[in-house]
């Protein structure tokens, strides 16, 4: 897995019920810390069992 293959990372669950939230701390960490987060996520993706979901078609609005 290369960094350029990752389009977006959204960390955590968030639990607000009115608007979507984005973790902002990662913008201010050093490249080394950001790299460590990326590496941990890549390791987790290799490690966790996979379940594929196949959504039904969405209605176009």
């Amino acid at each position: 897995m290369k960094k350029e293959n990752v389009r977006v990372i959204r960390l955590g669950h968030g639990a607000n019920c009115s608007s979507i939230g984005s973790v902002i701390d990662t913008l201010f960490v050093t490249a080394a810390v950001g790299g460590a987060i990326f590496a941990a996520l890549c390791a987790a993706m290799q490690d966790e069992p996979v379940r594929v979901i196949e959504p039904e078609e969405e209605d176009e609005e």
Partner: protein
Amino acid sequence: MIVRYEHWGAWVKLERTPALVALDRDGVRALGLDGGRAWDDVAPVRKSAPLEVHVAVTQRCAAGCEGCYLDATPDGAEPPRAQLERTLDDLARRGVFTVAFGGGEPTLRDDLGDLADYARARGLTPVVTTSGLGLGPAKLARLERFAQVNVSYDGPAEAYEAVRGFDGASAAERAIEALAARGVNVGVNVVLTRATFDRLHATLARARALGACEAQLLRYKPAGRAVSLDYRAKRLTLEQAKRLGPLLREIVGLRVRIDCALVPFLSADPDLAARPEDLAQWGIFGCEAGAALSATTVDGAPLPCSFARGLDAASFGAFVAHPPEPCASCTLRPVCRGGCKVVAQHLTGTFVPDPECPRVRGA
């Protein structure tokens, strides 16, 4: 982990490390997976489902917050459990990852824990927001069944009262402490207003001391009871909006989220405005209404977001695709998407660049 293929690759939802990761097709292949039918066509063949849906499980609430976006009342409407279960079934079928229960005060429902279990059984991650008022042992036990619980907390005493019109800070603080003591992932929702902005550090320090692991900062929005002349007196000043970036940098010891409506304010921060790719990579986006986010009312009706009632979808889409200046030339346009449409509609009656964005106000 849960994998949902998209025409461009896949969303991957990690379970042990809570995160959503969007991978391109090569990234998916690196995991030994293939998108199959979803990748058959170059152009998208279907609209992507939301990542997160906000479900109003009740319009009942005794708190009476002055700015309640749902206009919740003690005798507000409450959908039957069967309706909510149908909604959860539908969200699971569509491949939604997270369902955020709100209201009204969700803990007024005796079946709240059962609804969380129902969501989990269908592969959805349930989270919930509460005022923290009246949380006894039975309600706390129900909240343990959620992946995360956020308590509305705008600050100690006067700061809380300045936003909500009553002093509920003590109850909120007891709730944060009690949930954390039970091992629940507990966060706080902090509404940024003229009165709370400059006290944010003290608010977050208090929340952290009580056991909160995360803070979600929210822009004050003109919806529900907040649609009033008072809105203009409570919203952030231009100077405060400009200081959001520096303020965020100063926060330590607590994971911080900003809501979609605060993203336009980052345009006033030269460093962040120059890094739209970084914002996108870390999932920091502006208006996600009707895309990554949607909502359902207590009647079960779909909305683009919890605040967006009566928005014209076609005009909305056209504005996001081709916003006028000063959005058109803004470096953050790809992530900001023109700012909060609910604010723009309230202040101008139409879709225009967010009138409270510092870049727009300076144009």
